[in-house]
């Protein structure tokens, strides 16, 4: 079966080359029948890649330890879901996954547009297949998942998957990230095809709008899952460390968010055309660049995927090539990318979106600079200089607040030029709410709150007021004019203008998420060593260490502590933090115990059972942290509302 997978990858490579040739010929010579050949080549490559995936899944599922990849990342002691998830636990398997998702998207795009865009499709196929070719070259010649071990090295069992990854959230986190990253290949391909053919109108991004939204939403979920996993599994009480690998996934999401907003301006006012092409090019290049960062070891990360520097540089060269081609075309077409309209006022929706673009770009620069500072500093001064979370939090905080402010202001400000009257009408209520919030929060939390949290909460109140006003006015209009019930009116809003009203829900989700982040200003942590029966006091909680017991033997062992949690005299919960040892992998892990309320989390880690029988416990009190996950849920709801297919959906042009 594994040999079948190997051959499938080889055949896929051959077909990809043929497909690229057909596509180029079809595009240059305008031969539609050759477009079909290119499209079918993409489908065939997807078919062969699927075969390879199936072969690798089979090898992992059945424990074929003659394959190096299976031996390195799987073990017979693992349950089946984790044995299968090990496919993306290592280098070559994850590259195969990337390839499969890319060709899946390509096939879906080909199928969806099989009767349309005949001019664009040959070039879309060329770009998609060229990307696929890169990954096929890697998986065939550089890091082959079907490589067999020499006989002298075959073991009877594998090394097992890193215990930290043996968690349900971790099994789907890479899938979500890749589905997000790779999804941007579709709008990227259409953008490049549009520049090659000269069809520079709105077609390329309107056609790919849903694809982009889907990829963006899935990437957002992937980021949230990563944060939640870090919080639940890693036992350091946090969810985001600005680690290079985390930043590598965040950067394309930032560029994509800017892009999704910016295209609304091109749609409505035929402006920001160059911005939009640059943003989608940047998004996709950052996806590839992020993959390079994660695999090259060029920046030290606690997520050590691999440290083969030379391999990473293959990726870097590829990103440079893609960027050169794409931005080369943007330069080539720049004269055709002008706009018939000019920005008429700095107080206008267009200006708001432009500021939004700049805000996201600034955030991107901060994250990029901080992540790559060791590389830049070493090449310039010979010394590697690194920065930690404080750098990122200090600079990203104000930018996040600025973007939150625009979230409230942008949708309400008039197009072209806002008059004083329109500003008054739109903003008097939300501004009043913000003022009231300022006073209330200022009084209640006087002296206790830092500026970021204060501004964040006031702005969230402002955003909630603007969103509520928008919904209220739209529903009221339909109720009074058409006599509809409010419920029907609301449904109608989601049906006919889902991008706008679903987008508002997404904005609320982001605001809640930032509120959750702002709670970090109030975080408390303690490290205590306690004997059985002793209590620890933190805020209005009392934690009494009861006992520790050995974990029943399985593929891991260790100790579980029992800690009774009280608030006053009220018993709340028995917390059971664990310290596990995974025998095969010889790796200890801490499993925290978390008591969650909407107000805060109490998070307990068993650091060690000491030789004298005492327990060293690390306690964290994390106020408001659950608003991150609540905000994430609202974000997902908003994304679903935006993407929901409606049978009578009109394209949502009103932004």
């Amino acid at each position: 079966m594994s040999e079948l997978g190997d051959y499938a990858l080889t055949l896929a490579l051959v077909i990809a080359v043929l497909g690229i040739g057909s596509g180029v010929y079809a595009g240059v010579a305008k031969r539609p029948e050759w477009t079909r050949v290119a499209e079918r080549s993409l489908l065939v490559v997807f078919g062969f890649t699927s075969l390879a995936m199936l072969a690798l899944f089979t090898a992992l599922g059945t424990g074929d330890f003659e394959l190096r990849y299976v031996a390195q990342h799987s073990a017979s002691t693992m349950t089946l879901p984790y044995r299968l998830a090990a496919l993306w636990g290592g280098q070559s398997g994850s590259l195969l996954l990337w390839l499969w998702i890319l060709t899946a998207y390509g096939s879906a795009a080909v199928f969806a547009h099989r009767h349309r865009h005949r001019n664009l499709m040959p070039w879309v196929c060329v770009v998609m297949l060229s990307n696929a070719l890169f990954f096929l070259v890697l998986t065939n010649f550089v890091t082959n998942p079907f490589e067999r071990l020499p006989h002298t090295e075959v073991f009877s069992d594998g090394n097992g998957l890193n215990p930290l990854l043996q968690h349900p959230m971790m099994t789907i986190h890479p899938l979500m990230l890749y589905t997000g990253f790779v999804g941007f290949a579709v709008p990227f391909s259409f953008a490049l095809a549009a520049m090659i053919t000269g069809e520079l109108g709105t077609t390329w991004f309107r056609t790919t709008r849903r694809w982009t939204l889907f990829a963006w939403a899935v990437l957002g979920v992937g980021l949230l899952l990563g944060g939640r996993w870090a919080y639940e599994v890693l036992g350091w009480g946090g969810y985001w460390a600005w680690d290079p690998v985390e930043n590598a996934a965040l950067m394309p999401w930032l560029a994509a968010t800017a892009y999704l907003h910016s295209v609304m301006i091109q749609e409505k006012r035929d402006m920001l055309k160059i911005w939009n092409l640059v943003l989608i090019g940047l998004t996709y290049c950052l996806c590839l660049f992020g993959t390079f960062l994660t695999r090259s070891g060029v920046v030290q990360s606690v997520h050590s995927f691999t440290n083969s520097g030379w391999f990473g540089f293959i990726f870097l060269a590829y990103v440079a090539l893609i960027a050169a081609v794409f931005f080369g075309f943007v330069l080539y077409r720049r004269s055709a990318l002008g706009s018939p309209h000019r920005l008429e006022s700095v107080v206008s929706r267009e200006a708001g979106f432009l500021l939004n673009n700049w805000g996201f770009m600034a955030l991107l620069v901060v994250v990029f600079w901080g992540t790559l500072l060791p590389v830049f500093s070493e090449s310039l001064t010979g010394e590697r200089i690194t920065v930690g979370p404080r750098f990122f939090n200090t600079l990203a905080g104000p930018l996040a607040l600025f973007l939150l402010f625009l979230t409230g202001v942008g949708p309400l400000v008039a197009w072209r030029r806002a008059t004083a009257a329109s500003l008054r009408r739109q903003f008097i209520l939300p501004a009043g709410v913000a003022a009231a919030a300022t006073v209330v929060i200022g009084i209640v939390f006087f002296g206790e709150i830092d500026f970021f949290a204060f501004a964040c909460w006031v702005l969230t109140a402002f955003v909630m007021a603007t969103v509520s006003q928008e919904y209220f006015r739209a529903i009221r209009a339909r109720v009074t004019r058409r006599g509809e019930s409010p419920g029907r009116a609301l449904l109608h809003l989601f049906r006919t203008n889902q991008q706008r009203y679903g987008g508002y829900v997404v904005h609320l989700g982001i605001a809640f998420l930032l509120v959750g982040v702002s709670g970090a200003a109030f975080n408390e942590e303690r490290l205590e060593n306690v004997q059985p029966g002793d209590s620890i006091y933190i805020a209005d909680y009392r934690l009494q260490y009861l006992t520790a017991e050995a974990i029943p033997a399985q593929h891991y062992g260790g100790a579980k502590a029992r800690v009774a949690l009280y608030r006053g005299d009220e018993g709340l919960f028995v917390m059971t933090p664990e310290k596990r040892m995974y025998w095969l992998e010889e790796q200890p892990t801490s499993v925290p115990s978390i008591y969650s309320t909407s107000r805060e989390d109490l998070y307990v880690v068993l650091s060690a059972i000491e030789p004298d029988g005492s327990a060293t416990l690390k306690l964290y009190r994390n106020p408001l942290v659950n608003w991150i996950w609540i905000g994430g849920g609202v974000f997902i709801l908003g994304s679903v509302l935006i993407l929901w297919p409606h049978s009578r959906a009109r394209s949502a042009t009103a932004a």
Partner: protein
Amino acid sequence: MSKGAQIALGALVIAALLGWYGYTTLAGGGTYRYYKTLDEFRADSPEIGSGSLRLHGYVALDSIDRNVPERRVAFRVQNDPPHRVGASADTVQVFYGSLETPDLFKDGAEVVVEGHLEQRHGDTVLVADNVMAKCPSKFQARAEAEASQAL
């Protein structure tokens, strides 16, 4: 000046303000740390108190001293992994003022230690405010160990 240029200028002003804010907030110790391996550290001989440091190395075998009453852990760091080179003569003493070490912290673990240098009893020691441990490359380690046993 066109409106677009006005916006760009405004964005530039905001960026400058942010840069000034970042610069003043982040100035002082702790934000920017030199990242060095132990060999580089020895070669460069950083001065005591010359700023924060990130030292990359491996926990020397049998060097971990966990002092529960004093709530601190002391250990030594060497440049190369013990499973490859054995014990090394060149190590640096690290004092970490917490019992909360990472799960992967043990003899031979690959670590990155953040802290500053001090002189104690005539020795240069690293007083750590953070210790991070990385996942070792298990397949490599086991294969090498088995190969060396076979010889």
